[in-house]
Structure formats: C-alpha cells, structure tokens
C-alpha cells in the first residue's frame, strides 16, 4: 500500500467519530429515499399486476335498469372490447355480535363464460354454487374485521327482505382494493363490506330478472375513452343511465392513484430536501475538516505531490466517508420500505404485495449518494486543490476581532468574560457562524416537517369532523323520501335534533372544465352541518345560488359571481345555470352546496329528502342504532365517531409510522451536524483553549466556553429552524394538495417543541462527547506546535 493510501486509512480511523456522524446523515437520506421509492414501486407494480391479471374494467356505467339484450348492442360501440352487465345493490348487513348498522354492496359475480371483467381473487374457500341463492364470497377486509370464515353466516336485507347468507369464500377484487362507503371520508371495514353472489338469484331478489343495473367495459387498445363514454351515455339515457365514467372516477382506483401520487410527491420532496440538507452539511463539515489539514496539504505539495494527487487523496477520504453511509442506508431503507408497503396493504387490499429492492432504486440511491458527495464536497476539495504550499505553511492571517454590535447594544456587565469570548468567537466569523446556524437550523427544520403531519391530521379531524360536521349519526335513505320520514326519525327516543338533506349527483361545467360531484341541499338554519369560511368561521347559506369548496372552484376556474352549468345525472337530467355565491373551506373532499328549498324547487319536488343528520341524547346511541336497523328505507347510518376511529386505525397509522421514521432520520441528521460542528470547533481552537488553561482557567471553565459556544449556536438555530420547517411543511402541503384532501398547514407548539428539544439533546450529547477530548488537551504539546 502506498504511503498516501496508508495516511488515508489512518486519517479515516482517527476521524471515525466524524465519519460516523457524516455517514449518519447519508444513511438518513438514502434510507428515506429507498423507503419511499421501494414502497412506491411495490404498490405501483402490485396494482398493475392485479389490474392486468384480474382484468380491471376501464369504463363503469351505473344505470337503473336495462334489458339483457341491450348488451349486444353496447358491445358494438366502437372501442368497446368487452361489456359485462351486472347487478349491484346496496344492502344492510347484520353480523352476529355486532350491533352497529352495517352497510354492504352486493355485486353479481362475473359470468365465467364472458371472460369476466373484475375477476375475483379467492383468498379462501370457493366460489358460490350458481344455483344457490344463499352463498356469497365476502370481501377480505370485512371478513377480517369480523373474523368471518367460509362456512359462517350473516344476514342481509336485500330489497326489504331479510336473507341469511352463507360465506362460501373470501375474496379480493381489483375493483375494491380500497373499500369505502360512498360519501365517507375514511374506510371503516367493520361497518362497510363488499360481497359477491351469483347473478341470477341476486337479480331475482332485486326484481331485475333478465336485466342489469350496472355495466363494466373493457376498452380496445386504440379506443378513445371519452368517445366510448359519450356513446354509452347516449344509449343508456333511456334506461336511467347515471353517467358512465372511466377509472379516474372509480372510487378505489382514485384513492389508490391519489395515494400513489402522494408517495411520489414524498419520494421527490423528501429526497430533494434530504439531498440538499445532506449536501449542505457535508459542505460545511468537509470544508472545515480540510481547513484543519491545511498544513498537511501544504507539506504534500511542497514535496512535489501535484494538486491532482492531493485533490484525489482528499476526494478519497470524503468518498469513503460517504460510502460508509451507503450500505446501512440501503439496508435501513429496504427494511423500512418493506414495512411501509406492508402497512399500506392493511388498507389497500391486494392479493399479495410485490415488494422488491429493484435495481432502479439501488441506482437512484447510488446517484443520490454521489450527488450529495459531489455537491457537498466540491468547494472544500477545490480549496485543497487550489491551496498553494507557501500559503498553507503560513499561519492564517489573524482573525480580525471587533467589539461586536451586541456589546454596544447591551450593557457590558451583562456578559462575563467567558460569554464575551463565546460571542466574539461567533461574531468574528459571521459566515462560519451563519453556516453552522443554518446547518443546525436545517436539521431542526426537517424535524419540524417530520412532526408536522401528526398535528395536521389532528387539525383536519378537529375542523372537518368537529367544526363542520357536528352530527352524531348521518342517516341516508334508499331513495328520496318526503319530509314525513324526517319527522319520524325525530320521534325516535334518544334523538335530540334532526336536520334533513337532499343529495343529487351532478356534473358541473364551466367553459371546457367539468367535474362530477354530489350537490348537497342543506337547511338554511342548519346547525349539524356547517360550511366554513377561509378562517374557519361558519358561513351563512345564501338563499339561492351555490356555495363551492374553494378547491373545487379552483379546479373549475370559478370565482364568486360566476355562473356554472349544473347537469343533474338522475331523474329528469335537467341542466340549469346557477350563480356561485361564496366559497367554503374544507380539508376533506370537494362539494357543491345549495339551500335545501332552492334545490327542491329546482327539481320540482315538494319536500323530497335523501337523508338526515341526527344529534343524539347522551348514551342513546345504542338504542337509536338498533331502532334504525329495523326501519325500512334506511340505507345507511354513518357514525361520525366510528369514522374518526376508522381513520385513526388506518391512514393515521401509516402517517404516524412514517412520521416516526422521518423523525428518527431528522434526529440522526441533527446529531450528525451538531457533533461535527463540535469536533471541528475543538480542533480549530484547541490551541486557544490550551492557552487559557495555561493562563489558569480551570477545566470546567474551558469546558463552559466550548459548551457555551455549542449551545449558543443551537439556540440561534432554533428560530431559523422553525421558519425553515414551516417552509418545508408549506412545500409538503402544496405537494399533497388533491381533490380528496388538503392537509392544513397547522404547526403545533408540541411539534416545534419536540424539534427544538431533539436539537438541544443532540447538542448536549455532542458536548459530552467532546468533553473527554477537551479534558485530555496536552497543554505543552499544543503550545509547542506552530500556530
């Protein structure tokens, strides 16, 4: 081994503390990158395979009732490769031992001879006997939530008739990867399930013999989806077509898409942030490290090593420090990515998850490390490269000390000499101090960002499900009913207040922009469902005209005062023009709102309602839920508390896990930065500190100087750190903004506090780590060497 290489290894060993700290920063960056990347590709690939192997349909068209022979005509539409008629019905379910209202969606099994779109994956048991009316395949999520197995039974109220069903098998479908009750914000697998049964008995139960009420279509390779949808809408209009749509509006696909999109944002955003931070930190650390080796650089050059050879030597040193972070980063990232994907599969139901550490992720991680190394070390290495030997031999020009501005501004007696020394040291090198503060601030910012989602979710729940939606139970009817039905609900014992609502599927059009949404008619004097303004104050409902969610208005490029075309997708399918009056602010979903009476007038109805919100007396929940279960015409009763609980069980768990990981990563970065600052400060100032000891300062006093400097830097970094953190959160909010939800930019004091505490704890740990070296300063040796 060459002498220069030997120097490299020995330097590396001597700098092992700093190497570990630098590697830690890299590990955090690479692990985050690999975690998000592999989780993303696992979900993406798994979905693609499921869709292909189980023939997920391209176009979906719900309708009221169409005769079977119509299918032949629909199959002749240009671009349609396969068309399959189905029977679909919302039902109420009863599971032994579970008292809450449970809703279900019954779907007829794909006909085997048609090739079958949306084929089932059977997890357990078998398909139902096509001739038996009481056998079903149960969706896995629901089956697991109630611990139902093949052979078990449950009851369903289909078309008003109670029927006992036997579980033949447990299955999954590409159509229901994400299962959520229509209108709900979060999945609740205990209160909503999907089941499949043979078509003929189901059609018979629904009085749909020889007919279908739902259509799924696979498109040919060159088909234009929009054309097929337009053709379908035209043919299905006489049969009560509710508007065909592509996968983009299919609930499960949309949520999955949204989640994948968010993961993609996370990959990009977190990788970019970690890349920038890691590079910045390396830049500081390497720059100062190289400075401490100034003389050695000069000697090597004096003896005839070229600047390239010296540059290569230090590049090697840095390269090895960076490389040390690569394998643990990959391993940690792979392990976390696997875990994250598993968590996702708890609420995305796939037959199996295709997780792999694919070469693309490895290459990207490598590129990440290289980019960090290149960006972070270029300037330090350049200085090594450019340093002329004579300059390196000369002591650096003595730093210019000035009476700092802070001393003029504050009475001198506020500072003891030690504090003055600390402050002067920091003030004499404003650039270095700024960089150190910025470095620690960045670590603090990442911590703030990682703690942010927790607070944001709480804020989301509090505002949406505490402030805007204040009902205890939301009851929806199987079909629109008169105001009498609402009065009946009010008479149920335990019900304190009832407010009716009317809901209608519409398509909103403004210029070339359009969007499908449920138009909700609310009572003007309502209190259980409130619209909120931009600063979350309740908005008065205008007597005519629409209120739109601000995000929806943005999608349609609408502002208050504009007029929007509203096309009803049910009933007489009338189209009306309505003015937009105000915009409401909400975090979950998007909506269009109208005063209840105005909506009823528009549709030419007297007092038709789709359901009602109930406020219950304390302790009356059980009784009311039981009473509702027996009532005909009640389709679903959504329990707000259960909804929140369901959300906390699923999505929140993913977020919290991710948050925990990100916090650990950010903490690693904080430790890496602070420790390195401390170590380098020590090596830069050992002579000065030893001089103080010679002059009679005690160990404790010298220690206090060093510790004082570290804590001053950390303290100075907190505020900029919070500001940086706020900026990063804003970036995250912007990246995650979607039609399904917008994360509020809500930073909790607790989140900021945690971030600050982690930074201070890292500072304390670093101070302890350098203390040993500080105590061991060899006074004579330090003073004998050249300044």
């Amino acid at each position: 081994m060459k002498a220069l290489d030997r120097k490299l290894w020995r330097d590396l060993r001597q700098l092992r503390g700093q190497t570990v700290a630098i590697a830690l920063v890299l590990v955090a960056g690479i692990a985050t990158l690999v975690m998000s990347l592999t989780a993303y590709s696992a979900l993406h690939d798994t979905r693609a395979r499921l869709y292909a192997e189980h023939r997920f349909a391209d176009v979906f068209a719900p309708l009221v009732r169409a005769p079977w022979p119509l299918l032949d005509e629909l199959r002749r539409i240009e671009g349609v490769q396969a068309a399959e008629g189905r029977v679909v019905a919302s039902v109420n379910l009863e599971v032994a031992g579970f008292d809450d209202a449970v809703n279900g969606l019954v779907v007829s099994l794909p006909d085997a001879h048609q090739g079958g779109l949306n084929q089932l994956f059977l997890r357990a048991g078998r398909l139902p006997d096509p001739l038996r009316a009481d056998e079903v395949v149960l969706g896995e999520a629901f089956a697991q939530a109630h611990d139902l197995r093949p052979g078990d039974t449950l009851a369903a109220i289909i078309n008003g008739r109670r029927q006992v069903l036997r579980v033949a098998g447990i299955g999954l479908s590409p159509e229901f990867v994400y299962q959520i009750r229509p209108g709900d914000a979060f999945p609740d697998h205990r209160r909503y399930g999907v089941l499949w049964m043979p078509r003929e008995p189901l059609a018979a139960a629904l009085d749909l013999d020889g007919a279908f009420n739902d259509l799924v279509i696979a498109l040919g390779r060159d088909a234009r989806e929009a054309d097929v949808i337009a053709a379908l809408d035209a043919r299905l209009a006489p049969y009560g077509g509710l508007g065909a749509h592509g996968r983009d509006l299919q609930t499960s696909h949309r949520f999955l898409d949204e989640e994948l999109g968010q993961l993609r944002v996370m990959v990009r955003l977190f990788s970019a942030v970690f890349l920038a931070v890691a590079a910045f930190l390396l830049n500081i650390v390497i720059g100062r490290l190289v400075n401490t080796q100034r003389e050695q650089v000069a000697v090597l050059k004096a003896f005839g090593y070229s600047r390239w050879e010296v540059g290569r030597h230090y590049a090697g040193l840095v390269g090895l420090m960076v490389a040390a972070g690569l394998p643990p980063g990959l391993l940690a990232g792979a392990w976390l990515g696997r875990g994250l994907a598993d968590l996702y599969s708890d609420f995305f139901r796939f037959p199996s998850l295709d997780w792999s550490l694919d070469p693309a992720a490895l290459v990207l991680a490598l590129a990440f490390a290289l980019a960090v190394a290149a960006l972070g070390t270029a300037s330090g290495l350049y200085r090594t490269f450019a340093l002329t030997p004579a300059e390196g031999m000369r002591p650096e020009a003595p730093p210019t000390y000035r009476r700092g501005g802070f001393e003029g501004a504050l009475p001198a007696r506020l500072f003891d000499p030690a504090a003055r020394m600390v402050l002067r040291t920091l003030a004499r090198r404003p650039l270095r101090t700024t960089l150190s503060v910025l470095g620690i601030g960045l670590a603090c910012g990442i911590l703030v960002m990682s703690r942010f989602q927790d607070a944001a979710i709480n804020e989301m729940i509090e505002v949406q499900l505490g402030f805007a939606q204040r009902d205890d139970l939301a009851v929806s009817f199987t079909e629109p009913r008169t105001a009498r039905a609402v009065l009946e609900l009010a008479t149920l014992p335990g019900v304190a207040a009832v407010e009716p609502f009317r809901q209608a599927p519409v398509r909103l059009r403004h210029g070339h922009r359009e969007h499908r949404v449920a138009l909700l008619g609310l009572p003007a004097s309502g209190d259980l469902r409130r619209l909120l303004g931009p600063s979350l104050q309740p908005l008065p409902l205008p007597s005519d005209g629409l209120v739109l969610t601000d995000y929806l208005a943005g999608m349609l490029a609408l502002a208050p005062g504009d007029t929007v075309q509203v096309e009803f997708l049910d009933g007489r399918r009338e189209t009306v023009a309505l003015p937009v009056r105000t915009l409401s602010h909400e975090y979950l979903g998007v909506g269009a709102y109208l005063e209840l009476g105005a909506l009823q007038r528009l549709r030419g109805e007297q007092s038709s309602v789709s359901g009602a919100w109930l406020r219950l007396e304390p302790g009356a929940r059980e009784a009311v839920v039981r009473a509702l279960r027996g009532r005909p015409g009640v389709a679903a009763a959504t329990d707000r508390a259960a909804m929140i609980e369901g959300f906390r069980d699923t999505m929140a768990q993913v977020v919290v896990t991710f948050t925990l990981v990100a916090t650990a990563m950010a903490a690693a970065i904080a430790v890496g930065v602070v420790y390195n600052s401390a170590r380098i400060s020590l090596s830069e100032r050992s002579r000065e500190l030893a001089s103080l000891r010679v002059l009679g300062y005690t160990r404790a006093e010298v220690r206090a100087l060093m510790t004082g400097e570290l804590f001053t830097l950390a303290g100075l970094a907190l505020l900029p750190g919070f500001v940086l953190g706020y900026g990063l959160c804003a970036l995250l909010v912007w990246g995650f903004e979607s039609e399904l939800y917008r994360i509020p930019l809500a930073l909790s004091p607790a989140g900021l506090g945690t971030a600050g505490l982690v930074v201070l704890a890292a500072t304390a740990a670093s101070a302890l780590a350098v203390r040993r070296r500080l105590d061991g300063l060899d006074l004579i040796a330090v003073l004998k060497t050249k300044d």
Partner: protein
Amino acid sequence: MAAPETREPVFRARGLTKTYRMGEVEVPALRGIDLDLWPGEFVVLLGASGSGKSTLLNILGGLDAPSAGEVSCQGHPLTGAGEAALTRFRREHVGFVFQFYNLIPSLTARENVALVTEIASAPMTPEAALAMVGLGERMDHFPSQLSGGEQQRVAIARAIAKRPAVMLCDEPTGALDSRTGITVLEALARTHRETGALTVIITHNAVIARMADRVIQLSDGRIAGEQRNASRAEPSELSW
C-alpha cells in the same frame, strides 16, 4: 570548499521583490534581492525574524512566486513557470526541512520518507535515508513516539531521500534545544558530505553560520552582507 565561479549556478536570482497582504496590512518581505547559489555549497542565510529569509527560501523552492524579479534554477526560469512545472521541480530537485518538522502524524517514520521516495525518479530507499540520519532503529515509530530532534532527523531523511539538487532548511533547529539541535546539524552536515547537494539553511542563530562555506546576511528584505568562512566548523564544535 569555495565553488569555482565559472560554473553555472544552481540558483540565480535578480531583483526579487515580494509583498504580502496579511489581513488588512501590506507587508513587504523582499525588496530587491540579487543572489547566486553554486553547486555543492553549504550556505547559511542569516537574519532576524521578519528579515524575509523564509520568503526567499519559499521562492527558491518553488513554493511561492515573487511579486517582481526573476529566479532560475539550473538555467530553467522558475518565475512564470506553471503550477505543474513547479510541482515537477519540487518533486525532482528540492528537499525541504521545516522548523516544525511537518511530518504527517498518521504515518510512521519510514512511511513519511516513503511518501517522498514513491514519487521521486531515482530515490534512495527510506531505510538508507533514515540510516544516514542515524534513525535506522526507529523506523516504525509514529511522530508522536519520537523526540523533537528525532522528528527533525526524519524530516531530513525525507528531504534527502529523493537525492535532490538542493536542500532548503528553514530554521531546522529553531524548535530544539542546543544539544538536540547539534545532532540535527550533524545529520545535515553528513547528508551534505555524502550527497554533495547544495544545502541552504536559514536561521537567526549566528553560531550556525560557522559551519557554512558562505554566509549571507538578510535584513529588512535586503542582502545586508556576505562573507566566506576560510574553514567550516564541525557541528560538534558549536554551542549556543
């Protein structure tokens, strides 16, 4: 041993001027130096601190460039030479010894010498170079395990190992006590004797001047005087 003046000098300097900027002040270090140094000479540059002697040495060694004036080595101009040419010049022809030894702390004595022999074209072995300075027994010690005098002798071995045309020594005894300093000077006298390299020592210690062929006095950035010793003293005869 006076050099015959008809030969080509190793170094020829004319009108060397150097001004530094140190922080906020301009420091003139050299104010017009004319100088010839001949092969095989043992020269002592004598001067108080701040006289410009280190600056002169750095310029002769290709570590620094003058602000004005010219210097050439064996007929090749150093002024205006590029970084690569100066690096090659140092690598092949110059051996440096510094006041504070400047050994690489993470390398042993042998490895410190090897650092230089590995890149020179016709070096002696590190072992031979260390034996020449009397350190054949301590080759595998790290700098921190060696005394100051021993460290400086490693530095001399490191400088001589490449068989340079010139040895440039900047206060080689400056950090050492008298007794140790003399062992270092003995090592330098021996390497000079055995290799015949032009050896230049800069020092503020007038006693050392007695072992030189020629003594050049520097003061305030100028040559203040020059004298030849009729006979060179042995280092063992010196004391301070």
